[in-house]
């Protein structure tokens, strides 16, 4: 009787272990499989997130009010700061107009595509960010009905965030560039002096050091710490000139042939609520 019980226990442990191994294998298979949402899934996702956003509204309202009251303490200082900035805006506006015109003409001359002026901006709010995938994905409240499409770049005023990987009618899922499974390297350039740039590839995010890693930079190039890193626009997804961060450290690769540059992100990936999706302007052939 006792032996039989022990045997039963053993077989239960074996079965449970087998199930766990099987489940983990299925996980890995599923996780590596990329799939788009079908219409049925889109409807479910839209419905659930819409209900969720309605429920979240009162909570967001209260937390916004708390933040608002905190900000009111520094109101006078902010007013003075803004007044000063406002006085300079007129000068900037004229300068920006001239630069835009020059930029467009030069881009035409050089046949450069993928610059920021080619894009429309769609502002969106984050409606969901799951704890387990914090540095991986988040969901925004703009979807296909707002013209959002897969592989559009997503930014904040501080810099590059990621790209759209999944869309439904009302919502979209964005993959952060901090994600290990972004699936592509990003072409970047580092400003080493006035008018002088070094080009490299952003290939990884070190979650321990909280910095990006750039490869493909020659051993002979001197890169000052604190240099700004921006996108080059040499891809269909990320336009030219979006800030990634600043150089924080430089290391040599395993063969001492090239440098690995560590870049401190300009965006705080822990706390952002509003984002901008860069939507390519439709070409008017008329």
């Amino acid at each position, binding site marked *: 009787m006792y032996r039989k019980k022990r045997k039963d226990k053993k077989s239960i442990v074996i079965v449970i272990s087998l199930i766990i191994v099987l489940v*983990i294998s*299925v*996980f890995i298979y599923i996780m590596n499989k990329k*799939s788009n949402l079908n219409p049925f899934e889109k409807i479910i996702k839209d419905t659930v997130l819409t209900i969720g956003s309605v*429920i979240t509204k009162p909570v967001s309202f209260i937390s916004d009010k708390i933040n608002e009251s905190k900000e009111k303490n520094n109101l006078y200082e902010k007013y003075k700061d803004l007044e000063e900035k406002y006085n300079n805006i007129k000068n900037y506006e004229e300068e920006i107009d001239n630069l835009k015109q020059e930029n467009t003409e030069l881009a035409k001359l050089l046949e450069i595509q993928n610059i920021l002026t080619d894009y429309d901006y769609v502002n969106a709010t984050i409606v*969901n960010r*799951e704890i387990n995938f914090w540095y991986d994905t988040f969901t925004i409240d703009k979807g296909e009905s707002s013209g959002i499409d897969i592989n559009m770049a997503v930014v904040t005023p501080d810099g590059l965030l990621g790209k759209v990987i999944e869309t439904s009618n009302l919502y979209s899922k964005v993959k952060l560039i901090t994600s290990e499974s972004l699936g592509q390297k990003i072409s970047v350039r580092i400003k080493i002096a006035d008018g002088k740039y070094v080009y490299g590839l952003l290939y990884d995010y070190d979650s321990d050091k909280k910095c990006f890693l750039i490869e493909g930079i020659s051993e002979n190039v001197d890169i000052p710490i604190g240099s700004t890193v921006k996108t080059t626009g040499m891809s269909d997804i990320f336009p030219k000139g979006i800030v990634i961060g600043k150089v924080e450290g430089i290391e040599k690769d395993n063969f001492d042939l090239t440098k690995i540059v560590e870049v401190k992100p300009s965006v705080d990936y822990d706390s952002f609520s509003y984002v901008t999706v860069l939507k390519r302007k439709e070409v008017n052939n008329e």
Partner: protein
Amino acid sequence: MNKYLIVILSFFIELSLSLIFYKNTIFLNTFSLLSIYIIYPFFKNNKRKFFIIIIILGFIYDLVCSSIFGVNLILFFISAVIIAFIHDNFSVNYLNSLTASILMLIIYRFLTYFAFIKVNKLGFDFKIFISSIYSTLILNTCYITMLYFLLRKRMYKLKY
């Protein structure tokens, strides 16, 4: 309280709170997972229905929250099996409920983290794993306590 309402409310509260409490705080939650534990006694005579509800919840959770489709569907199902085992073999009291839900949480976190590092070819970081567990303890303990004392009488009646 309606058993379905508990699950639906827990899911939406989890969704809302994830936007208010950012990461690295100690106020993270997995209320949907805990709601499964609490509703099990209501399905004592219809376990099939219980598992169907868990599969639907996992499916929606994946669709809305997770970046990888299918993970939570499987994890919720495993959790449901563990819950059924605990409920069928142990008595219903506060200490058991709390211990079981914390155990479930650790298993859930471990499997999610393990799958994530496997796919992304990352090294296992014990600190991250531990922090992902303790950061969820406060809110989850409060929630399971609240649900337990709200539904205690009905749970006893259904079990005995």
